C-alpha cells in the first residue's frame, strides 16, 4: 500500500514542526526520514501513523484519505523508540496482542505468532518477559508485534536508537533482509545517516520542518541538492569564494561553473569531501593550496590528515588511503600542497 502526504503542516505553539511537506512512498518501499533533531522527521512519522494530527494537509493510504482516521482505524504497525512492550506479558502474548484485539481464532493466533517468532529468530523465548530480554531481542519482539496483524504499512521511530553499536549494525542488516522478504511499505526515522543509507531504498533529508532532498542513497551522496545536505552528510570541507561569468573562484583555485554566466560577481560556497582532496609534497602545476600538516590520525580504513592553510585561515580534513599515506610519509609540521579532485559549488541566494 502506498502512502501519500500532501501539504502537511504542523505547529506546536509557535514552533513550526512541519511546513507544507509533501511526500510519496510507493508500495513496498523502505524509506528513511533522516535529519537532525527538531527537523520534524518524527512528527511526520507520527502524522502518517495517526498518533498525531496535522494542522493542515492530507494523508492518503493508497487512494483513501486517512487524514481524520484515528490510529486504531489506520491498521499500521508502529515500532516505538523504546519498544513500549507490554511488561506484564510474555513474548508470545506481546506478539499476539494485535490478533487478540481483533478476535482472531485461537489456532490462527497460535500459528501466526509462532511464524513471526521464527521470523524474528526468537524461538524458545516465547515465555520470557520483556525484562528478561536483551535490547536487540526486545526490538525484534516489537517488530514481530507490529507485523502480527498483517498490516500494509510499517512505521519505525528511531528503531535502533537505544541499541549499542554492534547490535545496531546486525539488526539493521536483518531489517533490510526482512523487508526484502515481506515487502511491506515501511518508513523509519533516524538521525544516523549511515543507518539511513545502508538500509533504505530512498532517503528523505529533512531540516527545520521541510524536506531538503529525496533520493536514493547514491543520488544523495553523488548529487547533494544544497549546502545543508552537503554539510549534513559530513566529512566535508567548505571553501568560500565567488562566481562570475561561468567561473568559480575560491582562493587561488578556479573551476568552471557554467550554471552562472552573469557578469556580476556573486558569493558562493564550495564543498569538497575529505576523500576528494589530494595531498602533494611538491607543486605539480595544478591549482593548489599551500598548507601545513597539523595532525595525522592513522585510523582505519583511511588515514585522517588535518592540514592548516595560513593564507586562507582554513583547516582542511583529508582522508588518504594507507597506500597513498605510506607513499607520502607525512608528519605533523610538513608543508604540503592540497588540491581538490572534485568540488560542488553552490551560489548563495540573494536573500542571504
Amino acid at each position, binding site marked *: 500500500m502506498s502512502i501519500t502526504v500532501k501539504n502537511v503542516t504542523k505547529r506546536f505553539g509557535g514552533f513550526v514542526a512541519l511546513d507544507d511537506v509533501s511526500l510519496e512512498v510507493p508500495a513496498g518501499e523502505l524509506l528513511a526520514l533522516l535529519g537532525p533533531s527538531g527537523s520534524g522527521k518524527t512528527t511526520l512519522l507520527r502524522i502518517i*501513523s*495517526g*498518533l498525531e494530527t496535522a494542522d493542515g494537509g492530507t494523508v492518503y493510504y493508497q487512494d483513501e484519505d486517512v487524514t481524520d482516521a484515528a*490510529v*486504531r482505524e489506520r*491498521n*499500521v*504497525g*508502529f515500532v*516505538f523508540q*523504546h*519498544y*513500549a*512492550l*507490554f*511488561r*506484564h506479558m510474555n513474548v508470545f502474548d506481546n506478539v499476539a*496482542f*494485535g490478533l*487478540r*484485539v*481483533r478476535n482472531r481464532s485461537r489456532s490462527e493466533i497460535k500459528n501466526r505468532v509462532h511464524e513471526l517468532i521464527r521470523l524474528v529468530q526468537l524461538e524458545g523465548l516465547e515465555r520470557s518477559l*520483556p*525484562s528478561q530480554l*536483551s*535490547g*536487540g531481542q*526486545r526490538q525484534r519482539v516489537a517488530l514481530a*508485534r*507490529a507485523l*502480527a*496483524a498483517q498490516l500494509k504499512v510499517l512505521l519505525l521511530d528511531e528503531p535502533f536508537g*537505544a*541499541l*549499542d553499536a554492534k*547490535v545496531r549494525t546486525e539488526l539493521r542488516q536483518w531489517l533490510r533482509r526482512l523487508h526484502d522478504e515481506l515487502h511491506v511499505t515501511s518508513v523509519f526515522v533516524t538521525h544516523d545517516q549511515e543507518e539511513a543509507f545502508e538500509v533504505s531504498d530512498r532517503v528523505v533529508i529533512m531540516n527545520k520542518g521541510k524536506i531538503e532532498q529525496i533520493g536514493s542513497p547514491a543520488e544523495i551522496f553523488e548529487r547533494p541538492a544544497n549546502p545543508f545536505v552537503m554539510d549534513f552528510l559530513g566529512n566535508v570541507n567548505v571553501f568560500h569564494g565567488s562566481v562570475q561569468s561561468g567561473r568559480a573562484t575560491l582562493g587561488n583555485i578556479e573551476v568552471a561553473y557554467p550554471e552562472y554566466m552573469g557578469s556580476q560577481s556573486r558569493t558562493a560556497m564550495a564543498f569538497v569531501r575529505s576523500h576528494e582532496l589530494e595531498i602533494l609534497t611538491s607543486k605539480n602545476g595544478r591549482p593548489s593550496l599551500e598548507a601545513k600538516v597539523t595532525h595525522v590520525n592513522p585510523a582505519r580504513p583511511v588515514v585522517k590528515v588535518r592540514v592548516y592553510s595560513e593564507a586562507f585561515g582554513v583547516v582542511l580534513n583529508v582522508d588518504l588511503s594507507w597506500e597513498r599515506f605510506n607513499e607520502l610519509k607525512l608528519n605533523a609540521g610538513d608543508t604540503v600542497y592540497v588540491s581538490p579532485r572534485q568540488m560542488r559549488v553552490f551560489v548563495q541566494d540573494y536573500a542571504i
Partner: protein
Amino acid sequence: MAEQTLRRVSRRAHEDPTWVKWTLISIALTIMTLLVVVPLVDVFVEAFAAGIGTYWQNLTGDPDTRHSILLTLMVAPVAVALNLVFGLAAAWAIARFKFPGRAFLTALIDLPITVSPVVVGLFLLLLFGLQGFFGPWLREHDIHIVFAYPGLVMATCFVTFPVVARELIPLMEALGAEEEIAAVSLGAKPLQLWRMITLPNIKWGLLYGVILCNARAMGEFGAVFVVSGHIAGKTDTMPLRIEKLFQEYNLPGSFAVASVLALLALVTLLVKTTLEWRTRREIEEHKRMLTLGGEA
C-alpha cells in the same frame, strides 16, 4: 567491584557523624514507642484483661455493638467501591490528559485531607439536613440522608476520597502512556486497553489504595460523628460505638471493639508494605528498561 567500593566510600563521606545518626534514631524510636507501640499494645491488653471469653462476650453479647460492627461492614465497602470509581477516573484524567484546570483538580483532590472531617460533616448537614438546602425536597420525597445510612456513606466517601487517587496518580505518571499508545496503535478498543494493559500495570497500586481506603473508611470518626446523630443500634458505626461505650464507663467493651479496629490497622500495614514493595519494583523495572534499553 571497584565501583561498588568507591560508592560506599563516597557515601560514607557524605554521612553525618555517628553520634548525630544514633541520637536521631533513638529520638524517633522513643517517640514511636510512646505514641504508637505502647497504646497499641495497651488496647489488646485491656481488651483481653478479663480473658478471651469475656472479650468475645463484649464483642457479640451487646446487640448495639453487634449492629455497629455490621453497619461498618455495610458502609465501608460501599464507600470504597465508590472511591475506587472516582479515584480511577480522577487519576486517569490527571495522569493522561493535559487540560485547563488540571492543577486545580489535583489540588482539589487533596482537599478532604486538609479540611477537618467535622467540617465535612457539618457541610453535609447543611446541605441534606431537614433544615438544609435540599431539606424541603428530601422531606417531600421521604428520603433520609442525614442521620441515616446514605449520610454515613457520603461522609465516609468524602473523607477517604483522596486515598485511591493519590496512590494511582504518581504510579500512572511514572509508568507513562507508552504501552497504552502502543496498544491503541495495535487496534485495541478502550475496554480492551483497560482490561489488557492499564489494569494489569496498576493492579498492585490499585489494591494498595483500596486496602488503605478501606482502613480509613472503617476508622472514620469526625464526619460520621456529625451526620450519624449517634442513634444506638441504628447509625452507630464501630468508632462511634467505641466512643459511646467509653463514655458509659464500659472500658472492657470499648477496648474490645477498639481491638478489632487496631487489628485491621495491623493487617493493613502488613499488606501495604508488601504491595508497596511490589509497586516500587515494577516502577524500577520499568525505569531500568527505559534507560538500559540497549544492554543485554
